[in-house]
């Protein structure tokens, strides 16, 4: 198992190797421009990756500092995700219980199903739950491993002949951008008017009306609001973060960038 220090040591050896390959190509007694143009490139790449290796501590501490300044705490974000998942799964349990009770009345279940397609609600609910769980997994991965991701990215950049330059820069930039940006998600949704608190508050206000009123409320308010808060809002935000990290990746690599993990609805 490699530690971060091991990764950086190997990266340093690789950047030295890149540099020496560059000088060897410079010394080749072949006047071919296509071969010779790699020499100054490789020398510059070796020096650049060495600068990145020595700046590793600065990059990590600056990322943590920026995260503290901009986004607020990871603890609150984890709590927000967990509590939203708990609320949704409780809603799922209550609704499936209520639906089981109502559909046990003869003909009532068929009438309800013909007016309000209940499977739509349940599938939207389970999709929202699975997307939030995926988000939780992604956040856990970024939170625990962002330092390893940065070190691995530097190692990939240090490989000779720019083999891993684009994907290495994408590792670094996505680790930085997602570590800083993800905890801001609750505030982002709040600013859009999509808070999870609003989602469940009016249930108590309509619970004493008729069953049809309740179903009406579920389909005209709760379902769209739930899909917006738990799927579309986070998806928009993750897309913003993804494009930002692709931009930072092309800044680091000078060649382009891509995203090393998926963010779409699975």
């Amino acid at each position, binding site marked *: 198992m490699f530690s971060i220090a091991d990764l950086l040591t190997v990266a340093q050896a690789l950047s*030295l*190797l890149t540099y020496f390959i560059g000088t060897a190509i*410079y010394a*080749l*007694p072949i006047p071919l421009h296509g071969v010779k143009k790699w*020499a100054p490139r490789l020398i510059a790449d070796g020096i650049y990756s*060495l*600068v990145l290796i*020595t700046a590793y501590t600065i990059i990590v501490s600056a990322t943590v500092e920026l995260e503290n300044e901009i986004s607020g705490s990871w603890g609150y974000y984890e709590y927000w995700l967990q509590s939203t998942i708990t609320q949704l799964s409780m809603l799922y349990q209550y609704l499936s219980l209520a639906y089981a009770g109502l559909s046990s009345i003869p003909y009532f279940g068929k009438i309800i199903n013909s007016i309000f397609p209940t499977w739509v609600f349940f599938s939207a609910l389970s999709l929202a739950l699975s997307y939030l769980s995926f988000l939780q997994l992604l956040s856990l991965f970024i939170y625990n491993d962002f330092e390893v991701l940065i070190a691995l990215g530097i190692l990939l950049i240090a490989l000779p002949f720019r083999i891993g330059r684009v994907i290495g820069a994408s590792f670094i930039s996505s680790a930085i951008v997602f570590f800083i940006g993800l905890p801001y998600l609750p505030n982002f949704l709040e600013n859009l008017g999509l808070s999870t608190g609003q989602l469940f508050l009016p249930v108590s206000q309509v619970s004493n009306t008729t069953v049809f009123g309740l179903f009406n409320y579920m389909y005209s308010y709760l379902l769209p609001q739930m899909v917006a808060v738990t799927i579309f809002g986070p998806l928009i935000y993750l897309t913003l973060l993804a494009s930002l990290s692709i931009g930072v990746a092309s800044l680091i690599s000078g060649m382009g960038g891509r995203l090393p993990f998926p963010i779409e609805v699975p």
Partner: protein
Amino acid sequence: MSILQIVQNLSTEVAQIAWGLFLLAWGVGWALRGSPIPIFRIKRSGQDILEDAILAAFFLAIGSSVFALIQYLASQV
């Protein structure tokens, strides 16, 4: 043998090869440049090889110093 040792051995070998190539390019370059052939392009390519070889020797010679310097500067930040 660990990956680190493999890479370090490889870069030592590459540095030795680069020094050898420099000597070869030095010889070939001067031979072409000083050759009694009245074709300007051949003499010119000998000149180019010499210039590149001198640059290569320069970068090889300062390679370890540059790396040590960057590490020193970065550790001071």
